[in-house]
């Protein structure tokens, strides 16, 4: 079966398997990175052939990487921290989603206008064992309320299930990530968002975690992968529609049997939403620098948040988690050329 991965003719010598930390394929990292990198030949240029597997969540993805089923995964940074604490031989080698993707949303006519209004209400989270629960708790705490006392968390999942819970009044607000909201809105439900307080600024969501073993054997391979990945991101940011079309070609299963023409617009919007969280909010793509960098301050915030969420129980020495040494070489690419390719792209 024609399934995901390197469909392009010019295959490199080195193989890299990317574990997608989600059971489904969608307009997110696999499209912006894998599909575009493959279709545009960025991986081939680096002598790489890239394949994907779907792991059910960040923990499973980290396990897949650590046990050799995959080489690298864009996984939740908190999970990567937890993995390291659990002595999993995995190292973060670059950032991916740099802007906080989680938000609280309510129905447009909801009386809830600020965090404080959540008192006595119910907030829908994906599940109590997912990133959305610690986020909701942190949000509630910041609003001066006590989670699980003043506000009840209810696991509602995403998509239709979450929508139903909100519109039926089973919950008063949702705590989901941006792209999940886009899907809900595109399906016809209007939402209003509460502003995230500044505490969330700088907490990292997805980052690239690589197998320590592979890394020790061939660092260069990962440098080349990161470079191609960031180039692909830049391309996608510049021409998300083209990226989405490549996504359909490389991962036809994204469509789930639907007609591409009927989905391209909404999927492009979803992809844009994802890219928005994964790339700097300010400036023009041409000015974006230091792809994948995570500052020590960001790490500190992320560690504190992860600890608060209970995923780790002590701060982890940075050098055990973080190996930024690949980034300089990974950033060594001609951004203008990529932008040009994006502008001139013809399917």
């Amino acid at each position: 079966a024609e399934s995901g991965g390197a469909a392009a003719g010019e295959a490199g010598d080195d193989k890299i398997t990317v574990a997608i930390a989600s059971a489904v394929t969608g307009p997110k990292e696999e499209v912006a990175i894998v599909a575009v990198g493959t279709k545009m030949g960025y991986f081939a240029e680096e002598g790489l052939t890239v394949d994907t597997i779907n792991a059910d969540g960040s923990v499973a993805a980290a396990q897949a990487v650590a046990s050799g089923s995959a080489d690298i995964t864009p996984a939740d940074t908190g999970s990567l921290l937890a993995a390291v604490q659990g002595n999993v031989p995995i190292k973060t080698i670059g950032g991916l989603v740099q802007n906080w993707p989680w938000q609280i949303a309510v129905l447009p006519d909801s009386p809830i206008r600020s965090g404080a209004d959540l008192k006595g209400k119910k907030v829908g989270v994906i599940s109590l064992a997912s990133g959305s629960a610690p986020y909701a708790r942190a949000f509630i705490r910041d609003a001066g309320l006590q989670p699980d006392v003043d506000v009840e968390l209810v696991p509602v999942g995403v998509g239709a299930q979450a929508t139903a819970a909100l519109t039926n009044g089973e919950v008063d607000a949702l705590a989901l990530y941006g792209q999940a909201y886009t899907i809900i809105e595109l399906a016809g439900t209007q939402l209003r968002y509460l502003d995230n307080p500044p505490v969330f600024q700088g907490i990292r969501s997805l980052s690239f975690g690589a197998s320590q073993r592979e890394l020790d054997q061939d660092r260069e391979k990962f440098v080349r992968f990161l470079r191609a990945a960031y180039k692909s991101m830049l391309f996608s940011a510049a021409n998300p529609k083209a990226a989405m079309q490549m996504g359909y070609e490389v991962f036809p299963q994204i469509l789930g049997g639907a007609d591409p023409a009927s989905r391209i617009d909404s999927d492009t919007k979803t992809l844009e939403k994802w890219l928005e969280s994964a790339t700097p909010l300010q400036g023009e793509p041409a000015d974006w620098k230091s792809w994948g960098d995570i500052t020590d301050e960001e790490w500190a915030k992320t560690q504190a948040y992860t600890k608060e969420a209970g995923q780790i129980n002590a701060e982890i020495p940075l050098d055990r988690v973080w190996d930024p040494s690949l980034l300089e070489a990974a950033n060594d690419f001609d951004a203008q050329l990529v932008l040009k390719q994006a502008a001139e792209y013809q399917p």
Partner: protein
Amino acid sequence: MTTAPAADEVTDEVAPAKPTRGKRFDLRERPELILVPAVFVVLVAAWEFLIPLLGIGDYVLPRPSRIVEALGQQLGNALFWQHLEVTVRESIIGFLIGVGTALVLGTAISQVSLVEKTLMPYIVAFQTVPKVALAPLFVVWFGFGITSKIVMAAVISFFPMLVNVIEGLRAADADRIQMLTVFGASKLQIFRMVRLPSAMPFIFAGLDIGIVFSILGAVVGEFIGAKEGLGYLLLQTNYNFDIAGMFAVLIVLSVLGLIAHFIIRFAQRKFAFWAEESRVIAA
């Protein structure tokens, strides 16, 4: 489908006036030919018209008309048939492995009580473990490909079959075993000539449960981490907010289960006829 008679139908031994299996269907004889579609139509109609009335959104429970539309679209899509084929393949292979293992192990367990005592606790213990939670292990052991799904299908169809095989092989009539023993039959011959035939109703019950569960197992396996198969398609349609499409897939799964069930029941009537017939025409 011919079924066992109800109590007061025991008297109903084939009277000459009543043709047993006429070529032409007499609707009074086979009311199910009207009833099954009737129930279907009523259910579907209720579904179609009640849903909007109850204010249930299409994104929770789409109306049949939408689903049929989505189904049509799926059936016209080549990729869908690939997904279907993958799931069918996983289910069948998993079913055969699960049921085969259960037959062998069930035989050993029912025949050698030491094997039972040594193995059974572990089998039961393993059976209660939610395999979905073991996903990372499964995937490490069996890869992200089709194998892990086959294993899932096999594991979930294994236990119902095992329990039924054990119970069935034990249900054999002691007098019949004694009879064969006197004539010098070996354990194997007794097994083949008495235990196995006696166990047939149990074995077919196990097969029936097993085939239905193996489809379930394959689909759940696809939930864990797959790139193809109907389980994957379910996740994808759900993710895409294509709830009608998701229901279309669910319907395809139901039809798969039904077909499998009827194949098993057909085999039962072919290969275990005596139970049925001696029950119907007992005297």
